[in-house]
């Protein structure tokens, strides 16, 4: 399980970086970033997984006393929750930038979206 999660996460990260480094369209670059971010989240959760264990929620199936021996690590789960929201915020701001860049230059090509006024 963990290997699949980690490998899948890494693959997503690589695809994301590939997109960020090679795509011309800034929307695609942002999608690349999103994939990169998602890959990270998969790796995060995957790393906290322990074999044959359950979600860290105390209920009928998981009495409080057995929690530490039968649940997976709650820390990466808490962390990934935060990371997802941060990623969401960053992506939304990036998209608004893309929108504005498009409005000012009428192109989404990253090679044309630079400032050439330097002396």
């Amino acid at each position, binding site marked *: 399980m963990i290997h699949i999660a980690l490998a899948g996460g890494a693959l997503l*990260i690589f695809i994301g*970086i590939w997109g*960020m*480094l090679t795509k011309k369209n*800034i929307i695609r*670059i942002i999608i690349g*970033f999103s994939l*990169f*971010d998602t890959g*990270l989240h998969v*790796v*995060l959760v995957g*790393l906290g997984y322990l074999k044959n264990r359950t979600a860290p929620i105390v209920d009928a199936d998981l009495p409080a006393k057995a929690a530490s021996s039968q649940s997976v690590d709650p*820390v*990466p789960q808490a*962390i990934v929750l*935060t*990371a997802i929201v*941060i990623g969401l*915020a*960053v992506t939304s*701001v*990036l998209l608004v*930038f*893309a929108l*504005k*860049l498009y409005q*000012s*230059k009428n192109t989404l090509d*990253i*090679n044309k*979206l*630079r*400032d*050439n*006024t*330097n*002396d």
Partner: protein
Amino acid sequence: MINPIYIVAIGLGTAFSLGLLRKLGKEFSFWVTIFALGAMAFISGHWLSAFLSHQITSTVITTAGGKAPFVIVFNMGMTEALFSFMVTMGAVFSGFYLHDRLIESGPSAMAVLLAGTMGLNGIILTGDIFNLFVFMEISAIATAGLVLLVSDFKALQAGFKFMLASGIISGLLLLGIIFLYNSTGTLNISELHSKAGVILKSGGVATYLITIALLLELKPFPANGWGVDLYEGAPSGVSAFIASSSATAAFFVFLKVLPLGGDISLRIAAAAGISTFVFSNLMALSYKNTSRLLGYSSIGQLGLLVGIAGLSKHLGDKTLMIILTLLGTHYLAKAGLFWLSGIVKNPNTDEWRSLRKSPVLFAFFGVFIFALLGFPPFPSFFGKWELIMGLVATKMYWWAGAILLGTMFEGIYLFRWFSRALKLQNNDTATPAVTIYSILPVVFFGFFLFYAGYYTSTFVPALRVMCLAPLLFILLLGLLDFLPAFLKNIISLAGVTAYIVYLWPHIQGNTFKIVFAGIFLGGAILALIAGFYRRGKHMGFYPMTMLMFLGLGILVDASNLLELFYGWELMTIGSYFLLIRGERSLPHGLSYLLFSLGGSLAMLFGFALAHASSGSVDLSALNHIRIMPALAYSLMLAGFMTKTASLGLHIWLPGAHGEAVADIHFMASAILLKAGVFGIILVLGGMGNTQPYAQKILFVLGWIGALTALIGNIGAAFQESAKYLLAWSSIGQLGYIVFGLASMTHLGWLAAYGYTITHFLYKGILFLLIGGVAFRVGTADMYKMGGLIKRMPFSFFAVLIAIITLAGIPPLVGFTGKWLVYNMILSKHLFYQGVVIIISGVIAFLYLFRLIHVIFLGQLKDRNRKVKEVYVWLLIPAYLMLTAIFALSMFPDMMLARLGRMLTPSFPEGALVWDGFTASSRYGTFNLQIIMAVIGATFAAVFLWLVFANRKAQKVKQFNIFYSGEAPSRPELTHYGYNFFAHYRKAVGFMATPLVTRFWDQLSQGLHGLSSYGRAIYTGNAQSYLYHIVAFVVVVYLLSAGGIS
């Protein structure tokens, strides 16, 4: 104590509530924001003051009622309090500065500023590494938001690049964090620090990712294009915030996490940091956009700090002091400069000339620039000193050298910017729009820079209070600058007198110091007496004059190398501002400043070697340096020779001095150059002449002296301007002095001292009076003068005596020096050099003859028919010096015998033997009184004969002449003084062509060429910048893979 959590609570609570306060108006929201920021600053400030007064120790504040390491904690220690205070104060003032833009964008923008500041505080305070990530993201997103306070394309694309870059960087950080958690089982930073063993075993790569991500946040070369563009694109108030507050926080967290990675991280930091410092400053050379320059400079400074952190093992317990002084200076100065750039508006460096229209702001511009480059009295001066001392003491020569090189690069573009802004004419520019919101932060940070310098110096035991007192006096003068010149002149005279009274007990009995104190401070009095001729206010003159003179005073008074360097740098600043006052001084003033900077950096390295081999900074450390002595002494000599304008380092002088007005020319030539002599004497005294390396250095130095004398005199002969002539002549005279000193003999030193004193006197007369003449006539071009003897008899007489002395013609005291030098040449068998010296002596006759002949003799020009005698205020000091020349000529033993007694302990051999007024050396005797009597009698006889023989001569009217059939095409051709030595120029002019100038020009072009290669990196393409970031991570990993466990 107030719980630091309230910093977060106040910041966020206010940010959230701004939405509800909309109804009350934007101004109200603005003030609520400023007030909240102020309250946050107050919290960290009151912790800081408690720490400083040692009332408390570091505390850990837990949240959520749990216990560490299981809950997020805040750490509050001295450094945390300081950094948090700095960050928040930066936000307060930047927010204040951004008033107009914040009002325009509304409460949401203010909320973003608050949230960002809160985030930066969180970065500093938090003790949890994932929480750190969260706070970093808050400040990153807030930064991107603040960039958008302006809505031009530049800001837009800068913000976009920044978001992308920081997205990828924080992704790597997150990856590192989770794997570190996986291997150590904790996120608490203190606990991580205690788990070094575990990290070493299974957390190496994770730690590497964290370290490299935090390093990338600090924009290391070359993966920093997005950073430079951010500085350039952001509105200036926001750039100020990024450069001061954000950078401070980012650096702090880097410091906090760096030790996790062990030695390999330190090495990465050192290499990446220092190369960033050198290359960012190199890159900056080819740009003229101020925001971009400041961006490179900021990145460079942070790189330097990262490098210092990486070298912390070598710097030991001084590390923190060095970091705080450099960071503090960068923080204050860079914020100030970015704020100023918003006031100037136009991003071109040259447009800063418009800032001169508000002199107070311009003064602060200067303060910020000099502070950034580590000049006293600012904190960075002490930091730079300790840094170089520490590195050299631990044999980190290359690192120290690279840092000095980077500083030099930084100096080139900052000084170029500053001096162009200072001198370019600005009639056509608009007056900068200054509001209370833009000016207050600048003024506050500017003054605080001084206070910070003072505060730092109280921690430096080597610096005595008397080195600071003069600065207070200068500050007073600066505040009184609105007074008329003569009042300020009187105050300055009082100040110099007071300093002499203070200094006298310290130098009593030390002939060496008395000689130089006499030249420096006695010269100051004479120069100030001459200063009474000035009318009006003469703004800015007196503080800078006093800065130079009191710097020279400190130089003489210095009891250790630090004080020496301190005085030297103060004198450099003051003299620069004097030299640049001339009309066309722009390029010369700049090259003076750059040579001075280079010289003082070389000196600093030399001092550091001296300190490293003796373990102390006392002046005695200069004696017998053991570590790389040849390099150490050469560097120090080169440093001091920038001021004596010796061959190769002389190109700044003719222009800088030639453009100066009378009394400034006097100060610069007769007095200032001697500071270099003072230093050379100190160095040579320490070096001695016994070691083989010393003999080689002395041999080279001797030749430099001789050739300088030759080149200086040749140069003088070809000048049309009397001032340039005198300036070149000074180069030559200083060449004699260096030659004499390099001989390391009794006679040579005696001659050098003699020249030092007499050059001061006769050049003093010449500078004051020729300057005065030029002022009256309205030009310094000699062919426009002539016949002035009738209008200015007093000047003529004094100038005549002065040039007789200069030429070394008997009977006046100048002859003594020449006699001594020739004796020395004979005794040391320096025949080749001797020939050069003698030739240059002959050339001196040529130009001196021309000087007196062309100006005072011959025909009076029509337009000069009404000129008046030179100002009496210039004549008074000139005649005082004339009296001194006569006194010394009549009683040469008064000076020479005393100097001889001083030199005998160091050079027992070959001393003069005195018998009454007769001195004898191995090669003969010499009695100036007899010579004077003989010459006087001869002169009287010839004079009487001429009067008798010419009794029937007929007086011819001035215009009773003809041109011998020649048709002069230009008016100056009718003057025989024009191109006086054309025939000599044909013969030996090639020697005067500025080969040296060409060398420096090409060096400069080469540097700029190298710098413009940088544009291949900084393409402005966001995607390339992402490449750089990823490549940086991979390449650094591969380079250090062996070290990462």
